């Protein structure tokens, strides 16, 4: 995975709450057996609305989405994260995210930034005409107008994002611990062997 420290640029000022995974990528795009090319189906139902932010040339290629509460709710489909990545999105800012989506985003090098609604409202206003910057090192979102919002992020996730670490590789290195657990459980809970 590509290491990531800052995300800088225009942001789609989406603003809506409960943007679910069927909105991010409808089910008929899930039949693929690869990770690539899903950007074309991203936000299909929103893009059918006249004047939507995703087809506004002002935001073309924007690396950030700013949304309302509960972004990514619904399905566990990682296709949602793949679709965002394919359309060039590297970060999403919202007051809250679904747990599964934020995990999927992280595993694809997409930063999920949780900020209070007031901060999100301010960023939505700024983003209409100006770029914003997310910095993982300082855990801040800043604007050209001296706005500075600090966000919390899990230290392990931040470390993985900033160093582009492969989580499976990290866990495989713990093989001895996993094997020891398996041996212990084979005795304590023998019914689990299948």
């Amino acid at each position, binding site marked *: 995975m590509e290491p990531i420290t800052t995300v800088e640029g225009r942001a789609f000022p989406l*603003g*809506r*709450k*409960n943007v*679910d995974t*069927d*909105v991010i990528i*409808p*089910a*008929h795009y*899930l*039949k*693929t*057996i*690869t*990770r690539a090319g899903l950007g074309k189906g991203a936000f*299909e*139902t929103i893009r059918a609305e006249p004047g939507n932010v995703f087809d506004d040339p002002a935001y073309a290629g924007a690396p950030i989405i700013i949304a*309302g*509460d*509960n972004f990514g*709710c*619904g*399905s*566990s*489909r*990682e296709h949602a*994260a793949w679709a965002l990545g394919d359309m060039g999105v590297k970060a999403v800012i919202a007051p*809250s*995210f*679904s*747990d*599964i989506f934020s*995990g*999927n985003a992280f*595993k*694809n090098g997409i930063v999920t930034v949780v900020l209070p609604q007031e901060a999100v409202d301010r960023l939505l206003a700024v983003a209409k005409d100006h770029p914003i910057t997310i910095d993982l090192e300082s855990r801040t979102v800043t604007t050209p107008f001296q706005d500075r919002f600090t966000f919390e992020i*899990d*230290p*392990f996730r931040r470390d993985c994002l900033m160093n582009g670490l492969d*989580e*499976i590789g990290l*866990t*495989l290195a*713990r093989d001895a*611990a*996993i094997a020891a*657990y*398996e041996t212990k*459980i084979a005795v304590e*809970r*023998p*019914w*689990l*062997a*299948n």
Partner: protein
Amino acid sequence: MTAPRTLYEKIWDAHVVERRDDGTCLIFIDRHLVHEVTSPQAFEGLRSAGRKVRRPDLTLAVPDHNLPTTPRVGADGERLPIADVESAQQLAALEKNAPAFGIRYIDAIAPEQGIVHVVGPEQGFSLPGTTIVCGDSHTSCHGGLGALAFGIGTSEVEHVLATQTLLLKPSKTMEVRVDGKLGFGVSPKDVVLAIIGKIGAAGGTGYVIEYTGSVFREMSVEGRLTVSNMSIEGGARAGLVAPDDTTFAYLKGRPMAPTGENWDKAVAWWRSLATDPGARYDKVVTLDAADIAPSLTWGTSPEDVVPITGVVPDPMSFADPSKQEAARKSLDYMGLAPGTRMQDVAVENIFIGSCTNSRIEDLRAAAEVAKGRHVASNIRQALVVPGSGLVKRQAEAEGLDRIFIEAGFQWREPGCSMCLAMNPDKVPAGERCASTSNRNFVGRQGPGSRTHLVSPAMAAAAAVTGRLTDVRDLLGASA
């Protein structure tokens, strides 16, 4: 003496392989269910890295999402081809990947085939006190057995295949307590819709819910699976019901359940998992069973719940401005005007099925309403889709298929069907569906589809009247 712990904390503690300083734990996964949609990229990842599946014995694969629910075998016993090329390709990938990695595979025409979340409990693969994952958010379903079960993305599917573990942070705990007696005609689906209506679609985010109280103690395992299934619609990645004698009676003798001495050991351990007296939850929500009516959704979020006796709400009645805006958009999409009585809304499609409501008790409840009645003339399609081949057989042995067919329903082969528009079963654009599934999102049942989430009995009631209907008016009344 150790501090009192909740059911969730006990299961978590029993699965910690390693704990890091920052609180992240390497958690062992006891059971991994795999289906065709979220696995191809995971298997491809293993292949390209030269990795194996660590514990194929703890993994079970079954196709469900893409399968058409029309007959799968021709007159001379040959498998019928799947018309949709992409669906066929995705199904073929699982059929190839499972044996290539040594994973047990239930094929599309096996009698045990069905929706993963119906198959797991039915086979006794899903057990109390286990950690269960699947690349599907409705994995929360298995929590009805007292398992810590949750949906994962494809990268996590690959992680579990390779390591049989996941790196996780503990969740917060929420107790949802429902005491009292459920009223006439009120089903487990109504209970969970009422809960989601109360806590909101994001209310459970970051939490694992434990369902407690007399309503769940008295509820069947199938009902508990329905409730736990929709935990994710309230934002909670997992839901739990403490395992008890009802659970053990349900599991005993199932093909993959423990036997003999192992069964006795397992039951003893399962009994020890109940939340200790004095254990604290991070949040407690209570509902009174008597306040729960047959319920349904009016909008495009599962939190948009009203009793069937209610009306379409006015967007301005919500305090939160962003909810007002969301409600306006929902009503526009749903083609509904504020103040309309829910019972005056006509529907054109009926779907009885999905991992939420396709088990034998669901079909019995729907058949009770359908018996001796007929699907209304304005209904274009009314599907009954059993959750597995074994549910289908059982229903046929009980004559339920005849009741549905005589009433004008279509009796289908098992699969995810009209829940999510990945197979030929879809709701046409602009049409309305009374659906026993779990999501009423924009476009969920097909582009432009309008979903009202209901219980199986309510879906059958809507089928025979042609409009959203209070099932209590039909139950007990002679057909």
